[in-house]
């Protein structure tokens, strides 16, 4: 029952290196590895800037958001009013700073609620089989095709003064379905992997299989669906405010655009509407950058595609050529047909 070759048994241990101590900090580093790339960091920096403004808005803003200065109506940017004033003499910069809080609070609350729904329904739909999976999938599909904005308008208009939480919830309910679908697909693929089978064969209880063995492998997708929902919620909120569904007492960037639109600011009084639009675009860009970064972490092929193309070009290949393209050197060896090879390699 034994092999007559005891020499091969001596296992080559890895060369002795210092033992790596796992600290709380390095664990955190592992968890947030998906944010450790240029795109994500740039996005996080911009997002952090807005978060700071949202937190410290009261101290930063030079005026109150609704302070009216009737001596300075519709004024262009100056040293007194950096971003000019509205038709009521309100300071646009102050409104912008105060409005940041509403946007971020609604965006992130909606993101959190939507992610919780998406994880609960998506992972369950992916793990169970048969009619349970199909019915949860059908539910997801229904929410996927519900036109979000009209629904929000209908619900929001039922209330005299809808709270931020209500607005967030409505945005979340119409926005979780996409994340739920992606999570379902990924869970279905994880479910049959060997390491899940091994955990089952070890007798792990179901809740541990889902919470401990599966969820850590889904963090990147959960994070990306969270960020996606935040973008959608921010755009939804500003749209609602702009079309006037959300009462004007809820100050956010959309409200600024609403007032600008109502008072004929387009196109002459650019300082009134351009900054708010830019802020929306900038926040959307920051969140998208974070998402791209996560995507690259999940799918390294996205990251290396550019580098590979550059390396290929150095060697004289063009990536879009067919894989059987002939090297320039081979063309020199084969003078009978130089025209064809040249044409396929030099661009």
């Amino acid at each position, binding site marked *: 029952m034994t092999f007559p*070759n005891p020499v091969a*048994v001596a296992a080559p*241990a890895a060369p002795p290196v210092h*033992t790596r101590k796992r600290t709380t900090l390095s664990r955190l580093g592992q968890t947030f590895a998906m944010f450790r790339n240029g795109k994500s960091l740039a996005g996080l920096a911009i997002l952090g800037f807005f978060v700071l403004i949202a937190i410290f808005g009261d101290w930063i803003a030079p005026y109150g958001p609704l302070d009216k200065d009737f001596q300075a109506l519709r004024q262009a940017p100056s040293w007194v009013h950096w971003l000019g004033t509205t038709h009521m003499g309100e300071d646009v910069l102050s409104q912008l700073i105060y409005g940041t809080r509403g946007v971020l609070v609604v965006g992130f609350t909606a993101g959190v609620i939507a992610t919780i729904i998406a994880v609960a329904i998506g992972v369950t739909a992916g793990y169970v089989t048969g009619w349970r999976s199909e019915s949860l999938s059908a539910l997801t599909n229904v929410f996927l095709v519900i036109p979000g904005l009209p629904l929000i308008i209908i619900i929001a208009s039922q209330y005299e003064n809808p709270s931020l939480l209500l607005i967030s919830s409505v945005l979340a309910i119409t926005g979780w379905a996409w994340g739920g679908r992606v999570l379902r697909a990924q869970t279905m693929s994880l479910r049959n992997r060997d390491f899940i089978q091994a955990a089952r064969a070890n*007798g792990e209880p179901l809740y541990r299989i889902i919470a401990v063995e599966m969820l850590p*492998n889904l963090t990147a997708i959960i994070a990306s669906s969270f960020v996606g929902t935040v973008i959608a919620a921010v755009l939804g909120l500003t749209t609602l405010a702009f079309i006037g569904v959300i009462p004007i007492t809820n100050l956010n960037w959309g409200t600024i655009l609403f007032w600008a639109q109502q008072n004929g600011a387009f196109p002459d009084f650019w300082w009134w509407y351009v900054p708010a639009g830019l802020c929306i675009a900038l926040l959307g860009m920051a969140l998208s950058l974070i998402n791209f970064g996560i995507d690259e972490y999940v799918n390294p092929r996205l990251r290396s595609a550019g580098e590979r193309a550059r390396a290929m070009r150095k060697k004289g290949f063009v990536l879009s050529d067919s894989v059987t393209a002939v090297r320039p050197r081979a063309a020199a060896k084969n003078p009978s047909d130089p025209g064809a090879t040249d044409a396929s390699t030099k661009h």
Partner: protein
Amino acid sequence: MTTLEFKNVTKKYRVRGAGEMLALDKVSFTLTSGQTIALVGQSGSGKSTIAKILTQLERVSSGDVLLDGTPIPTWGRPLRRYRQTVRMVFQDPFASLNPAHTIRHHIERPLRLDKVVPPDQVEEEVFRLLTRVRLSPEQTIDRRPHELSGGQRQRVAIARALASRPKLLIADEPVSMLDVSIRLEVLNLLAELQSEANLGVLYITHDLATARHFSDEIMVLHHGKVVEHGKADEVILTPKHDYTLALRNASPDPEKHFAAPTTPGATS
């Protein structure tokens, strides 16, 4: 002494639109501790189905699986206790370890689940298990699977399978995904651990050569049926079924084609 018995086990899979697929057709065999049976057969012959039934990832359609004469439980605590006695090493070490968790987690879980040792001795036991499969505990314990080579991962998988001190071990092609140069090492390790713990091993493989060396009996599976079952040498030297013959002829015979064996381990 633990005995596992397959009695006329039949397994049918329902295939959508195609009725039923017969994966196992009245398979019977007995595996006792200390013994190694090699299960040989081509892809789709039902080898992995047997492994799945033994680990209770699948249920039988008819027939009995008996552990020491009693039918194996299908749920609850008795099932967990059964699973403690029968463990499996998966084929692909790159897929059978959770990429999100450290080696410590993988070996700790069965220890804690089955309460093999008191909680305060778990760490010590993990070290002992890693040493037993010849991995340096200090260096491997806090790593994640992607930081290890295929052979090292398979050693971790073996340590995990042995953690609950099982009586029977299913090795589903444990070396087929490994580099040729380390296959023998891993097989030798398995053989050594087997004799240490008096394990019964079901060695599932394609490879007749290692099956002959590694096992006492060889069982050939073809389209869900046991077509041949006997002492390892008998099956190889006097194959009765065409498929066994084809398998034997397909594997290179160093004695026939080379003047001298190329490695001391290739023949015995």
